[in-house]
Structure formats: structure tokens, C-alpha cells
């Protein structure tokens, strides 16, 4: 989409052609569960860090899919790995394994 430069706020349009999806594909290979997420937000609602940090697993998955890796990694670094999200997830996503995998894959330079 052409940005004419007249907006009040910077454009929030996501251009999937502009970022490298190889890492997300690698993540999806290792953790096929990540594609199952339907962004219901149960994980974020049950997270014990809620209200104290910006950790939000639903957002992490969305951000990774959109190539905003730095933000996602910062969120993940707050995780205490307590596993509550695993229990509440209606899609049965193994979040306790997904989160370490995210750090493992996205930290590789």
C-alpha cells in the first residue's frame, strides 16, 4: 500500500512481503502447535505476570507471525514458565515448550 505521508499516526499496515518469515517457518516446523492458536487470549488472561509486565502469549504469537520479533522476545523474557497458559489453552497448545523454542530459534543470529 502506498503511504502518502499525510497520516496523523505512523501506518500500522503489515506488509508480509517486507519481512523474513524463515524463522517463523522454522518455529512452525518445530512447534506445529503455534499455527493452532486462535488468539482467544485465555493464556494472557490467566498469566500471573498480567498487570505487572507486558507478557502476553497471544500477542507474542501474533507479533512473531508479523515479523515483530524484538517486541515478542522482550515479552517472552518476562515469562516465569509456570504453565497456567498450558492448562487453560482450549487448543491444547504446549505453551511451556513453545516459549523456550521461541527464544531458542529467534536468538540465533
Amino acid at each position, binding site marked *: 500500500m502506498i503511504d502518502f505521508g499525510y497520516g496523523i499516526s505512523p501506518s500500522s499496515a503489515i506488509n508480509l512481503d517486507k519481512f523474513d518469515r524463515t524463522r517463523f517457518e522454522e518455529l512452525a516446523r518445530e512447534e506445529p502447535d503455534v499455527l493452532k492458536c486462535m488468539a482467544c487470549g485465555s493464556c494472557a488472561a490467566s498469566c500471573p505476570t498480567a498487570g505487572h509486565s507486558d507478557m502476553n502469549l497471544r500477542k507474542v504469537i501474533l507479533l512473531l507471525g508479523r515479523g515483530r520479533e524484538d517486541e515478542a522476545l522482550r515479552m517472552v523474557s518476562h515469562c516465569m514458565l509456570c504453565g497456567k497458559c498450558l492448562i487453560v489453552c482450549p487448543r491444547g497448545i504446549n505453551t*511451556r515448550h513453545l516459549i523456550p523454542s521461541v527464544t*531458542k530459534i529467534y536468538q540465533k543470529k
Partner: protein
Amino acid sequence: MKDRFISGYNDFVLPFVIGMSFILIYLAIGIIRVIAQLPAQDRKKFFLSLINPKLWIINLKDIICDVLLHTRIWKRKPLLGYMHSSIAFGWFMLIVLGHIETWMFVPDRLSTFYYPVFFRFFVMETDHTIGGSFFFFLMDFFLLIVLSGVFLAMFKRIRSRIFGMRRTTNNQLPDRIAMYCLWAIFPVRLLAESFTAGIAGGSFLTRPMYWLFSNFLTNTYHILPTWWAYSTLLGTFFVLLPFTRYMHIPTEAFLIVLRNAGIKVSHPRKGYSIAQIYSCSNCGMCIDACPMMGQKKNLRYATVYFNRLLRRRNWARCEESADKCLMCGKCVAVCPVGVDSCNIKRSLRGLKAAPAPADYGYFSTYSLSESATTSPSSAEPAAGQEKILYYAGCMTQLTPVISKAVGTVLDRAGVNWEFMDRDGGICCGRPLILAGRDERAREMIRSNTELIRQSGATVLLLSCPICYKVFRENYDLKGIRIVHYTEYFDELVRLGRITLRNSGEKLVYHDPCELGRGCKVYKEPRRVLGAVGELVEAEKHHDESICCGGSLGSLTLSYEDRKDITMHSLDNLLYASPERIVTACPLCLKTFSPYSPKKVSDFAEVVAQNMN
């Protein structure tokens, strides 16, 4: 009784001497390596334990009970216990008696270490004495016991179910060769001793065999070959020993000494862990015990195979196996050797975990619940009155029924209590420890300790067994009593601060892994539940209770596999057809509830409902 040969030597002893020398050198190097690899403070602990006479007595007792008599297997499965102890204790007695005989009749031969083993070959009987025939009787008696054990062992390979084992270990080639050697050693020994019984004498077993054979084998040419065979079998067995399951025979005693010294696993393949994995006898008790084994595809994740892979340094498959484990601790509880495989797996996870930077700066924004800080009781509690701080933990936040019930009971008992994390709190750290990330957990431990110290509480009450275990083991909270609510309510009942009425409901109690096997709390919840209803036991209970499947221990177990475990565990609980399942863990409650055909309640809930 005197020497038959002046030299006291025959070439046939060579295989035995070579095998024995090899294994002794191998063991000496192994022990030095293990001690060298121990962390400095553990090494100090080990050496200090060697000069402690009290520990010597404990070590001796444990070695006799575990290594020779196998009392732990006897308690669980008598026939299997007999099989193991007959071979171990019988063989040990044969060696000891051989030495005693040598010492009695030809004391100057004691210095050659093969002589007592082949005693019957090297001596000839000149006169009968009561002492001599007594020892001969004992030798034959213990040989018979060993033989009975060997025959049971052979039979176990065909039908393990008779011994109470559904599945037994799948042996690999070296194991199999060593196993056949072991099976052959004692029958061949019987043959060798029988052939020489005409010269060296014998007792109720060897003498009749000699008479039998002498009827059709009139020459003596078969004496030497059988002794050669006996020696070769022993030699082969000893040379194969380090590469097979039978390594546990020499290493188990060393493991007991290390364990009693209080050493803990620090590296999955170094130091103490080496002693642990080499002591695994591959008996396969852990296969039936593991809750994952309901599905055949998970068989390869059994602890026995994990130990074997770790011995061979197959890191990739070890890691897979370690990540799958539920850490319910059942394999450790049933292990006759007591291999602490959960901690080995945990340290392996830690070793293989990818570095992940953690940012826990936000911990400083947590504070005690409003009531805990604003109430005047945060000052010194009145004399004789304890101040209780209730930490519900993450999981209880998902099951508010528990914290509500705990509150009701505490209010009724009239105790002075505060809710530490009513508005959410920091995780206890156990989930991270289970994932092998101890250093990250340390930050939580530090922050929580600060918060607890701030509150001025004297008792820390927990409703989650996962938290309970970590608070007991990893926190330094001197002066504060850490108690699980099952124990505390039991205490309140016994002190008469709450009274219960018996509803007559048929209840079954599920032992949560972390509370039962993890912290050994079994009788307190049962005592209280026995007072509120009719308590029945599940098919497998106490130490052998089956994990609910929701365990945070497993990192990779899929949703479907977990569900299978849950169903299996429920079947086990409903064995005595109870009306209600009671558990004392929020995670178990959460896991069981969707699948259980019967109502699942928490312990606190049941107590709160049945208070007068």
C-alpha cells in the same frame, strides 16, 4: 583336607584372573574418576562421610539390605525379591565361604585370589571332619539357592507376568551375552564341583551328582574342561561387565556410600550421576510404573532405557526422553536401587536448555496483598499466637474454589491469617526448576523470600504441592514453618479448633505426585478425610499413585497423551467405586474435572463442607 598341587596353580585360572584384574582396574579408575568429577563441596562431604562411624553403620545396613537381600523388591514382589536376593546373596555367600574354607584348611593360599574361587579343584579330602562337612553342606546349599534363582531368572524371560511384571527390559546384545554367561556360570560350577567331588569331597548336591556321573563317565578327563569352562565363563562375564546391565553389581555399594554422604546430582553425566546410571540394573520395574507406558509408543521413554542411552552418551535421544518425562517420581519410588533419575533428567534439561535471557525487573512491582500489609498484624504477633501467611500460588488462582475454602476453614478455626497473593503473585519457581532452569528460578526465590520476610509471618501455608516442595527444598526460610494445608487442617482437627461431621460419603483420595512422593505427606489428608466420610483406597495409592497427567514436569508430552494418562489415572481412582474423588492439588483438580464421571473436589472444599 590338603593341597593337591604343590604349585597351587593351573592354567585354567587364567581367564578368571584376566577378567577379574580387568574389572578391578576398571572399577578403581571409575571410582577415582567419579570422585574427581564431584564438585568440591560434594567431594569434601564424601570424604567426611568416610570418617563418620555412624554413617558406616548406615552404609553397612543399606548395603546388606539393598545389594545383598534386596529388601525393597521383597516388599513389593516377593517372588521377584527371592529371585534377586537368591542370586546376589547366594553368590556372595559362596565367595565368603570359599575364603573361609581356604583360610581354615590351606591358610597360606589366601594370598592368591583365584584359589578360594576354585577351592574344590585345588584340594583333596584326606579325612572327614564335622567342620569340613558343615562348610561343604553350606557351599552346596547356597549353590542350590543360586541355581533356583537362576532358573527363576530364565523363567522370567519367558513369562514375566508370574513375577508381577507386565513388561520386562528389552536386552541388547552385550547384555544378552552377559546374561547367558551368568545363567551358565552356576550350572557349570555345579558340574565342575561334582566331577571333582570324588577327590575334593562334596555334600548333598555334588556327591550324588558325582556318583551319578561316575557310573557312565569312568575316566577323569572331563574334570579339567569343566573347570576351564567355569573359569572362562567367569572371565567373560567380568570383561563384559562394564558394558552391560550387570555393572550394578559392583557399583551399587559405591552409590549407597555416595548417597548416604548426602551428595546430590549436579551434572547428568559426571560424578554422582555416573554412579547412578551404572547402578541401574535394568530390572525394568520402572517400565510398568511409568504413567506414560499406557501407550506402547511411549515405551522407549522408560527410565531404564534413558539410563542406558545416557551410559552410551546418546545425547539426542536422552534429551527427547528427559523432556517427555512427567517427573512424577514413580520410577524413583519403585526403583530397587533408588536411581534418582528425575534429578538426572532435570539436570540434563538444564544442560541442554538454550540460553534465554530473562527480564524479571517487574518483580519489584509485586507486593503483599492489601490486607496483609495494611492490617496491624504485620507487626509482631501476640505471644503464643502464630501468624499465618497463605500463599495460594499460580495454580490455585485458576481454581479459586480452593483458596475460598481454605479461607473459610481458617476463619472458622479463628486463626490469624493473611492472603499473600490474593491479587496475583510471583511464581514459586518450581516450574522453572522442573524445566532445568535453576538460575532463573533463583530470582523468584529471592523475591518471594523478601515478600514473606516482610510480612512477619511465622507460618507459611500452601495449598499447592508444587509450591510446597520448592518452599521446603529450595527456599531458605529459617524460623518460618512451611506447611501444606492438608497437614495444617489435620493439626487443627486434632487440636479441636475445627470439628468435623461424618457425611458417610464414599471418598477416594488421590495422592498428588509432588505431595506424596515429593514430600512424603500421605497420612494427614487420609486422617482428615477418614473423619468426614468413608475413605476407600484407589487400586494404586501412596507411593504408587498414578500422575493425573497434568504434571508440569513434562515439556513435550502432547495434549492427547496427557488425556490418556488422565483417563488411566481416573480408572485407577474409581477402582473401589467412590462417590467423590478428593485431591489436594489444584493442578490435579483442574486436570481431572473435565474427564471424571464422578465429582472431583479439593481437600479444602470437602473439609469446609463438613465442618460443624
